[in-house]
């Protein structure tokens, strides 16, 4: 297992494997998303309180989940790169950041659109989820800005990994501090957590799976580009590009 992992972490090997893997993630992902979107938009009954507006969760929930997932991937692979000095894991962190920022933005937009019918306002400054999501977006911006302002790749990798790790703690704290501040979600003692009907939940789960697969495919593609760029002076890249079938 360990040997296999180590082998995968070598850039040329990863480059080969990921080329085979990416479509196997992308195609099922897109199919699942298409199916769940059709279910979510036309088949699932509307909610008894929110009407059709609730259907936006089929985009909102997966993108919010992926925004955090991407951050976790970014921070953990940064930490792995820092501790075990695996180059590939820094490439993973670098590749995950813009995708994560994209999903965070999507989550904020859909959340805001949903907020209009739900709360009567596009933006609710007091909501802990919205605030922590917004700060997550700022963290992504800071991370990418730090990366782009350090010329030396190795140095940029390490510095941004430290930042990502510090940021992880912060997202959690922001969530709690805003929760305390706004008191919107107080009262867990009285109300129990919500439930969802099965015929609404299943398309959501399918959507989550589809989004995750698509995210995986996107991440792989970006890591491939990142690896190719980082290894552009190496022998294997030159050989691959010069070989008859490799240039494509």
């Amino acid at each position, binding site marked *: 297992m360990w040997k296999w992992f180590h082998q995968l972490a070598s850039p040329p090997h990863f480059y080969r494997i990921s080329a085979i893997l990416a479509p196997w993630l992308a195609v099922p992902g897109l199919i699942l998303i298409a199916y769940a979107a059709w279910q979510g938009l036309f088949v699932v009954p509307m909610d008894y309180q929110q009407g059709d507006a609730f259907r936006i969760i089929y985009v909102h929930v997966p993108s919010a989940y992926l925004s955090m997932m991407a951050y976790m991937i970014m921070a953990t692979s940064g930490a792995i790169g820092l501790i075990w000095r695996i180059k590939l894991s820094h490439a993973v962190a670098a590749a995950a950041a813009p995708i994560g920022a994209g999903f965070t933005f999507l989550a904020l937009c859909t959340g805001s659109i949903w907020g209009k019918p739900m709360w009567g306002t596009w933006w609710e400054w007091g909501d802990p989820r919205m605030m922590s999501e917004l700060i997550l977006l700022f963290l992504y911006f800071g991370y990418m800005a730090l990366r782009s302002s350090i*010329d*030396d*790749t*190795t140095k940029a990798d390490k510095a941004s990994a430290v930042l990502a790790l510090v940021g992880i703690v912060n997202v959690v704290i922001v969530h709690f501090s805003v929760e305390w501040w706004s008191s919107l979600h107080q009262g867990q003692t009285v109300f129990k957590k919500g439930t969802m009907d099965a015929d609404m939940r299943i398309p959501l789960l399918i959507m989550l799976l589809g989004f995750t697969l698509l995210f995986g495919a996107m991440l792989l593609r970006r890591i491939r580009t990142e690896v190719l760029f980082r290894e552009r*002076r190496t022998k294997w890249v030159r050989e691959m590009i010069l070989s008859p079938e490799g240039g494509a």
Partner: protein
Amino acid sequence: MTHKLSGDNLTLIRGERCLFQDLSFALESGGLLILEGRNGCGKTSLIRAIAGMLSLEEGTVYWDNEPVDNQRQVFHGALVWLAHRTGLKGDLTLVENLGFEHALRAHSKRDPEEVYERLGIARLKKLILRSLSAGQQRRVALARMLLADVPLWFMDEPFTNLDREGRQLVMELVEEHCATGGMCVMAAHQDVEIDAPTTKVRIQ
């Protein structure tokens, strides 16, 4: 008690450029290691890497046959660092500057007055460093090295900003240091005439 500093298969890549590869050296008490090469070829990177300020792509630096990474504090307790930027505060006086260093390090047996006298900076003790000339500031930095009283000296381009007399003084100090069982790692692009067992490492 003799010490040994050695490097094994040191490789450093900065940005796109491989500065040096599979570079090895060994230095024992009483010896002088000179890192040579053109300007901008990676001498400074190499000396910083040996001193533990820069992480190497590959290879290990050993102090007394123990990897430096495992005993950073012991290693740093045995070395002093002198570079182009002296690391002295222009707003503080000579005594205040050296007093800071004194507080961080093991107390030396050397008499500060004697060292000041020797380096010709005894008169300047009460002045703030900003008011001194570049050469005088350099001498203050040398005083810090002497006062630290440790076996290993790191000198990155020690002759910059020094007149002939100053250069002579540096060479004398290094000779004396090596003669009394100290050791010195020096990055220099000029020819160095120091009477001590010398090892040279040339970076291409």
